[in-house]
């Protein structure tokens, strides 16, 4: 499957905020509450269209509690976008955002687009973090913000796609050097005549349940 660009995303945030569920909702359009807890990192991929261009999102879904420090750096390596997730029903997950953000800023390239996500918006009755608080945090730290529900799929598409739009815009603005893969952006096969034989689909796309 050919694409114009491939963007690498990373999903981060405390354990149990719904990172894997968000990913599954986005790639497979289903909600599966019982899901293996993530050890290390898991992957998902999906094709989206922005400005008439096919863009492949390659998403790294990380563990919320990682005891092996050195490995997290490799997750951030070359990520163009990050979804920083907290759970609106658990204030502690909101309180930990600062450390997550520090972590992300430290290990990623400075242009990485970060989307702050308050997940589980369907659980309004148990809400513990006001929407305004999320917005304020995002404003303060220069992030995009959305509340989502992996369960009802509310805003899930938008969260992933808006992040991609932001990245795309940065490419248009020349902020991202698309020839440097360390920025988390790869040019699709048909756009790079030099390596047209690259079997990008060989391992990359076949695993993505329901992508393309």
């Amino acid at each position, binding site marked *: 499957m050919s694409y114009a660009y491939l963007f*690498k995303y990373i999903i981060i945030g*405390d*354990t*149990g905020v719904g990172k894997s569920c968000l990913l599954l909702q986005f790639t497979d359009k289903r909600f599966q509450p*019982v*899901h*293996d*807890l*993530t*050890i*290390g*990192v*898991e*992957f998902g*991929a999906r094709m989206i269209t922005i400005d008439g261009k096919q863009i492949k999102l*390659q998403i790294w879904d990380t*563990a*919320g*509690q*990682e*005891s*092996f*420090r*050195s*490995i997290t750096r*490799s997750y951030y390596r*070359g990520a163009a976008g990050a979804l920083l997730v907290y759970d609106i*029903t*658990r*204030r*502690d997950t909101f*309180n*930990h955002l600062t*450390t*997550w953000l*520090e*972590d992300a800023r430290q290990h990623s390239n400075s242009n990485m687009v970060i989307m702050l996500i308050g997940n589980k918006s369907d659980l309004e009755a148990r809400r*513990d973090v006001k929407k305004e608080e999320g917005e304020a945090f995002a404003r303060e730290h220069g992030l995009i913000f959305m509340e989502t529900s992996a369960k009802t799929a509310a805003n899930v598409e938008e969260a992933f796609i808006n992040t991609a739009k932001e990245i795309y815009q940065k490419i248009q603005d020349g902020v991202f050097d698309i020839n440097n893969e360390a920025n988390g952006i790869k040019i699709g096969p048909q756009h790079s005549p030099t390596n047209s034989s*690259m*079997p990008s689909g*060989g*391992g*990359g796309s076949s*695993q993505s349940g329901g992508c393309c």
Partner: protein
Amino acid sequence: MAGFLSIESREVIRVEVKKCDGLLQPEYKRFSLDPQITSFEILQKTLTRAFGVKSDFTISYLAQDVSGQDVYLSMLSDWDMDAAFQTASDPCLKLKLDLKPFEEGLDDWDIIAPGDVPQYRFAHFIDRNSFLSSLTGTISSHVEKTMSTMQRTLGLKTELEPQYRAAKNPMTDMEFHNYLDSSGHMVKPEEFRISIYQGGIEPALRRVVWRHLLNIFPDNLSGRERFDYMKRKEKEYYKLRDQWREEFSQGTASEEIKYVATMVKKDVLRTDRMHKFYSGADDSRNLISLFHLLVTYSLTHPEVSYCQGMSDIASPLLVIQKDEAQAYLCFCGVMNRLRSNFLIDGEAITTKFNHLGNILQIQDPVFFEYLKEHGAQDLFFCYRWFLLELKREFPFEDALYMLEVMWSTLPPDHPELELPLMDPEYCPSLLSSSPASPTFSIKQTVYAKLLSLRRHKSTISKHSSSSDDSFSHSSSLNNNNSNEQTCCANEYPKMDAPEVQELKEKLSDIDQSLEHSMSEDSSANSSADDFSSEKCNGESDIGSSMTEGHTSNTDMEDQPQFQISLEMDQEERMLEQTQRCSLHNKQISQKSVSTPSKLAGGSVETLSLQKDQKSSDSLSAANSQSMKNSLVPGSVQNTQKNTDTSQKSQDDLHISDCVEVSDDDSLDLIKAKMNTPDLPKPHEFGCGNPFLMFLCLTLLLQHREQIIHNKLDYDEISMLFDRMVRKHNVHKVLHQARLMYSDYLRTQQKLHEQEMMEEFGVSV
């Protein structure tokens, strides 16, 4: 003769089988077999697999007696089977398979006091012995073909490619008892492990055998002693567990306990939920047991506390043990070895990455170079393999087999006196949130872990409590351990009031049922008994628990006594042990490695590898010690432990290599060449688990073509292996890993011999 001729000309006999299991609805299966190549043994095996039979059974066939009446005749041998083929197979041979409740309670064989079994049972079980051992005979490739043909006929999944079949059938009860003496002492620990290495363990037997593999027993206990030991340790566990549960139910638990409980709960609810055992409601008993087990461990081991991944380690232990306390003991046994995987310093994991990189570079420099070019030589995509010791890389049932094979390669590591169920620094008074109690060091672990991680702390402050008798004082709630106060509490965010409030509110299903069950069984461990008797897995043969089956004498008399068949008189036994020990000592004193190679058919080779000693001083110390104790089996290992408990520098490793039933060299094996001396020694390699390294190496090599051919980059390689979660072929992987492992051991042995020669300058 006409009958014989007609049979021989027949290519196929149709068979209809009816399986009867007590009052259960009979099951039917139909298949065809080739009378030319089917032996009675094959037929038994086929039926075993076709119906998934885990216990003993008898076969009979429908024939007509002289008066023309239908009658079932028993089929006990090839002779009977031939007779059946000739006389009763037209148009269809009707077989009846009767299950016997043979295995019931047997999994706890080792706790039965011997000697009070009527003699007649003896002969009875001898018969069984021959019956069962006939099932464990060698399999010719011819038989294999028949098996697979028949399996296909039966519509069974032919999951084993014949060339990857293990050299041996899984260990059975009968076989297991060969490794014990009449009173249940483990007398042949090497053979015991070698057998498991070669073929694993029958599922019904895992419950008992895993306890041995996981080093929960001190060395040299009799069956009776093991029983008493287990009882005592179970009580000890329940006491530990109930300490924090009481705080919970009284609402006096510290925030830290609640925090651990919340984290554990989250993970328990998403651990192996696809497995039948855990597929119940969120507050079902098995999930609660896993929750209890993990919280208890985390609280009583403040240095490790709770880390993601631990639920994956504990889950199969509980599935097999089916009892919370027993699973806890096994978990402690596993964690003794694995806890370093979960420490924040990351040293153990880093070492494993390095070692795997080293061996890959040696084994397959081309592939390694490829990974290097793509910046993937860090091998980080193998992280889960290390953390969970490959538990998630295979389908659940296959993972059990892989785990036991891997455990069997590890040298025995018995607890010196008893298996400790808690860290020395644990102090129950710290569980309480009462104002008088000091800050629990959990704060420095759980929070430290989550937060200091992100702040690049490479170490975790260890808080050693001086209260080493912590277990005995449960009422000391206002015990002031001043040294616990020294913790740097302000480095971590305070659990402010809203958070505490929030946590209280969020204690959902598990916590409620926890409190509920607390009031239900305030008297220690009654819940454990009925828990273990629950037939959680549909395996009725494992249902009976240790506690149930053996507390009453009448029950005990009903238990089959296998070890009696192995009985020899005391003198003989002493003699044998003496011989064993003196042999052992001889090995050590000469610092030599014995290699009893039985290479006759090139099929089985036994390697006996004495691990290297770091200094000749410690060696001679151990040596003289072991000479003194030469009448006590296993004294060598004990001495070693005494000499140096932290570094197991002189572990005794006896591993047999089986070149498996495979005569084709068309396997996509990279020819093993472990002949470079660069690899670490067995007790260092893979942090003391070299076989894990070879398993990981195998997984890498089995995908190298795919990776190189498709020119996968770093991300794609990571995704490839992520996709393989629970999908690797256990037989193929074990087969290849065993081959490489044996090469490695052989090389290590040669190196060792060379070192000996150099050190002493003489040849023996």
